[in-house]
């Protein structure tokens, strides 16, 4: 199982995600970098070292110096790319995908995910297969800086960006589930810097995940029970790359990952209004929040390539997805779970409100997300067929099919990572959202 596109390559490790395939992609990225240095990081997956070794070899062979951070959260990698003024970054992580997956995610010279044009250039190099092959004297050099060299500057910057004094004074008890992912080794330093009491769970990176590394309520059982047992003020679930975060309130409610973005937006836009970028699949909550702060909202296709292209074009102050991924542009143009946690704790400290109360201020919608199997070869036909009878008349085809109605919307789009169609509907009524999704699922199943 392999997915190749402008955002990189993603696959199930085994017969399809092989060392030579990884090398071909890293070589293509090497050609894109044109011998400039590259910063490398990986999450904790057990097969990470295989991909890492393949990338190191191919990048050195492309004549790029490699600065290998080892196990390191992607937002810290992105900050490091920018700080070192490197040619780019390469994150070996499949983020929220389960343990059998891994992926190469390419970061541009400014620490931002490659935009679609840059991604296409890498893809062109890959398809051309005409890779740079440096002679012995021109090979890149490998360096492996100590953790302190990249975690420390990041933490210091984060400490200065959020209201550390307020958080420290509140002395929160916080449960964080790193899902044994890349954030695990940094959490203690993070908690110490912001001044809260950390109760870490699943914090031993052993190559496997205790549950799917996707921050959402169905993976939150452990966090909920620990929040309850110790009476914590907040619980956080992280993806394996520490890009996304979902929340558990002090009332032990596992909140939908859709809340993370509007919650942060509500606090941040009050201080620093400006354009907000999100995707077609994200909850309407953000529309209401943006409107309340008189900020324009621009929707793009799913995926960091499209989102951060729009961020640049629109000079946005905030970007995010319904998956729990949020970027505050004043800090860095990257989805960053550390920053998200910091901003939420800051809001709790500054307002003196509990997490449940902050969430209670947000408009409530019901969102239903399902996926249905659809072979890659059938996707085009199925979507064409669905368009004929799709919900409502004004279909937005920016990413699959999307249509709005009075109290919500519905979208069908191709999964970026699996041979699936994703069907998402939102509505003020849970029953209506469910009915909208079920109708599409039935049509698709009939067609296949």
């Amino acid at each position: 199982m392999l997915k190749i596109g402008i955002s990189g390559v993603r696959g199930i490790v085994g017969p399809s995600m092989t060392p030579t395939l990884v090398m071909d992609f890293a070589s293509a990225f090497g050609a894109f970098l044109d011998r400039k240095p590259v910063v490398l990081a990986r999450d904790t997956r057990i097969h990470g070292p295989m991909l890492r070794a393949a990338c190191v070899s191919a990048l050195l062979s492309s004549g790029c110096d490699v600065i290998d951070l080892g196990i390191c959260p992607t937002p810290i990698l992105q900050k490091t790319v920018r700080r070192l003024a490197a040619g780019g970054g390469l994150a070996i992580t499949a983020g929220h995908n389960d343990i059998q997956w891994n992926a190469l995610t390419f970061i541009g010279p400014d620490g931002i995910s490659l935009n679609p044009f840059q991604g296409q250039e890498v893809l062109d190099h890959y398809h051309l297969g005409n890779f740079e092959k440096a002679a012995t004297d021109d090979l890149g050099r490998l360096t492996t800086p100590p953790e302190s060299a990249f975690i420390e500057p990041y933490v210091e910057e984060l400490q200065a960006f959020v209201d550390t004094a307020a958080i420290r004074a509140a002395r929160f008890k916080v449960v964080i589930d790193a899902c044994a992912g890349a954030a695990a080794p940094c959490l203690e330093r993070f908690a110490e810097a912001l001044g809260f009491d950390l109760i870490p769970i699943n914090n031993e990176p052993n190559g496997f995940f205790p549950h799917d590394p996707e921050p959402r309520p169905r993976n939150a059982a452990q966090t909920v029970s620990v929040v309850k047992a110790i009476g914590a003020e907040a619980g956080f679930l992280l993806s394996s790359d520490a890009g996304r975060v979902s929340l558990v309130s002090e009332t032990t409610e596992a909140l939908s990952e859709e809340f993370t973005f509007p919650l942060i937006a509500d606090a941040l836009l009050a201080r620093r209004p400006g354009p907000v970028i999100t995707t077609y699949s994200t909850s309407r909550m953000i529309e209401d929040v943006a409107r309340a702060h008189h900020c324009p909202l621009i929707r793009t296709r799913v995926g960091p390539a499209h989102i951060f292209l729009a961020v640049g074009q629109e000079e946005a102050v905030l970007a995010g997805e319904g998956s729990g991924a949020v970027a505050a542009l004043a800090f860095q143009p990257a989805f960053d779970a550390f920053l998200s946690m910091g901003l939420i704790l800051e809001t709790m400290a500054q307002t003196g409100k509990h997490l449940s109360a902050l969430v209670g201020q947000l408009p409530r919608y019901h969102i239903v997300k399902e996926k249905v199997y659809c072979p890659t070869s059938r996707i085009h036909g199925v979507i064409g067929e669905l368009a004929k009878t799709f919900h409502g008349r004004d279909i937005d085809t920016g990413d699959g099919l999307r249509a709005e109605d009075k109290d919500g919307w519905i979208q069908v789009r191709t999964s970026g990572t699996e041979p699936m169609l994703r069907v998402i509907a939102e509505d003020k009524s849970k029953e209506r959202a469910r009915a909208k999704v079920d109708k599409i699922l039935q049509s698709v199943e009939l067609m296949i």
Partner: protein
Amino acid sequence: MNSVKKNATLKISISGARGIVGDSLTPQLTATLAQAFGTYVGGGPVLVGRDARASGIMLSEAVISGLLSVGCRPVDVGILPIPSFLFVTKASKSAGGIAVTASHNPKPWNGLKFISHDGLYLTPQQTEEYLDIYHQGAFDFIPYGKYKSVQIMADAGEAHLKRLLNRFDSAAIRRRKFKVALDCNNGAGAPLAPRFLRELGCEVIPLYCEPNGEFAHDPEPTPENIPDVCAAVKSAGADIGFVQDADADRLAIVDEKGRPIGEELTLVLAARHVLAGKKGSIVCNLSSTRALDDIAAARGVKIFRTKIGEINVVEKLLSVKPKAVIGGEGNGGVIDPEIHPCRDSFAAMGLILEALAKSPKPISSLVASLPRYVLIKAWIEGSAERAHRLISLLKKRYEKTGTVSLLDGLKVDFADHWVHIRPSNTEPIIRVLAEAKTEAGARKALESLKSEISNCLKKI
């Protein structure tokens, strides 16, 4: 010409794989070779090491990636002399080893050597089985759950060092406090060799002992390439000078007067010393000097000759009766089976120092008392295929006048000299050698071989 050019940058043979970095030897090819090897050994721990070449890291990472993907546990030993690598592969009970090295090839080259669990290079037959997997692309990629981690072994040389120090009469060597000039040519021997000599009580004058792969001179340790160590011996008044080749399996010696004794005599000196202590067979390849036959005759022991290629000497050495006590090659490669059946410049240094320690004479006198021949090594351009056609023509020409052997290329023994022609295993060239009692005799024999070759080439 075209076929030579095509062959010129990549060679996959019983000696492993060699190619030019930035050209034929890519990360992808290297990972694929490692996948085939990992599949061949069927998983388990596999040692990964390298010589000091600048391209070593790039290739060893590719090897590690390939091994992981087929379920092996790579054990990264970093830069290590090849004899230590072979020793540790066996001692650590690994499933096998891959050494990233191109031995004495020039800097743009690098390569892989494949080692089985017993610490020996794959035999020709094993290589064939292994290459079948490579060519068929039948790799055992494992699912994620079976992945192993990479193990770092930073002190892999220690076990070899310990064994070496137990092997020799270290006390006797230490008492003499030898002054030794040592030229590692910034190769794989550099991290270990000065320590080894100091442990033997030597005062070391180090030359080019930075393992950075920047060869200070042509890596072939022949007399014309080692003037610096000769000068160092003289200016420091050293007892002896040692030169290791890039992967530290071969050794050249400089006498106390600063004269290279010729790499052909390293094995002869070592063999005489070993045979003085105990009787047993000598095993060497076809191209090694006749002085070894004289040594064997003088001690009344047998000598066995094999095809070129270390593994051929080793295989014979492990199987002959009476048991072999010394083996090697005329290129400075000494095999001491008491340590490990592989060429080992450390074993060679130990044996030579022990010989010196047990004699009141300087190294120049020990050399002077050896049977002397002059061996001239040359090469001509040509592929293996061309060599093969040449050889069948030459055989007809020589079989009336000399004793002909087709064991490896064509070797012809005459009463007072011999000639040998064979395709190289590692480069697209044909090697030609001639040995006689005198320089003039050897030159004459080589000229006559070369003129026979020109005659035959006209017929091809």
